[in-house]
């Protein structure tokens, strides 16, 4: 992941109000590291989705639980992790399963979005919470067609 010093850590409460600040920070940093606007949009969208899930499903909006976002840019990729303090979930079957919900369903599109807008997506339970780790390769713009 390049120089370990080259990372920014954002630590927010479990409140959707803070998502805009996370989004704004990623957007600015991605621009600073010369990512294209398409790639910037992709990483922001995937990361905001991971943070939304961490706040809602992970921490269940608990005031005293935090979400920690780590951003790492290097010469050919962007990688990030989102860590909550929740119980985790059966991500293996969620990822293996069919992530396309009924068209009229109001929920269930988060994993699909994260997969589409990243090049790798990984879940890991550790330190009393779920880590969502995602990577976007530079120059690899646009959402990927689903398999």
């Amino acid at each position, binding site marked *: 992941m390049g120089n370990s010093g080259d990372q920014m850590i954002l630590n927010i409460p479990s409140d959707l109000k803070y*998502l*805009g600040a996370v989004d704004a920070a990623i957007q600015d940093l991605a621009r600073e590291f010369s990512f294209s*606007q*398409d790639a910037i949009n992709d990483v922001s969208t995937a990361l905001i989705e991971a943070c939304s899930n961490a706040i809602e499903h992970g921490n269940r909006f608990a005031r005293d639980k935090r979400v920690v976002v780590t951003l790492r840019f290097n010469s050919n990729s962007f990688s990030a992790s989102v860590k909550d303090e929740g119980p985790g979930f059966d991500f293996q079957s969620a990822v293996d399963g069919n992530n396309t919900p009924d068209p009229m369903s*109001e929920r269930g599109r988060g994993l699909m979005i994260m997969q589409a*807008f990243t090049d790798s997506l990984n879940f890991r339970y550790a330190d009393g919470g779920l880590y969502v780790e995602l990577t976007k390769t530079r120059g690899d713009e646009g959402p990927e067609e689903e398999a």
Partner: protein
Amino acid sequence: MKITQREVGNAVILDLNGKLTGGPDADTFRDVFKSLIDQGKKNVVVNLEKVSWINSTGLGILISGYTSVRRAGGDLVVMHASDRIESILYVTKLNLLFKSYEAEEDAVKSFTAAS
């Protein structure tokens, strides 16, 4: 998120301002749609020009609006979506559910054509 309403032809345009993320926004949105349908207004254009971003819960809010106007015999279309939002609609295939317009005129005309 702020919502302001205006009428153009036989359509109601909802100008959204902010981020569409669920939470309190969902209730606001539901109330607006309920009152529109009570007044018999069921052709709705959601103006996303001032929506900086949306997450999947925000998409759910749009779908709930879509569902209620369709049930009432109307339709919902969106306009002025940014590239970022367009690509989310595309990935989730919601572009097949509600049409997306670049010009207000075309969005408003879409209802006339259908009825």
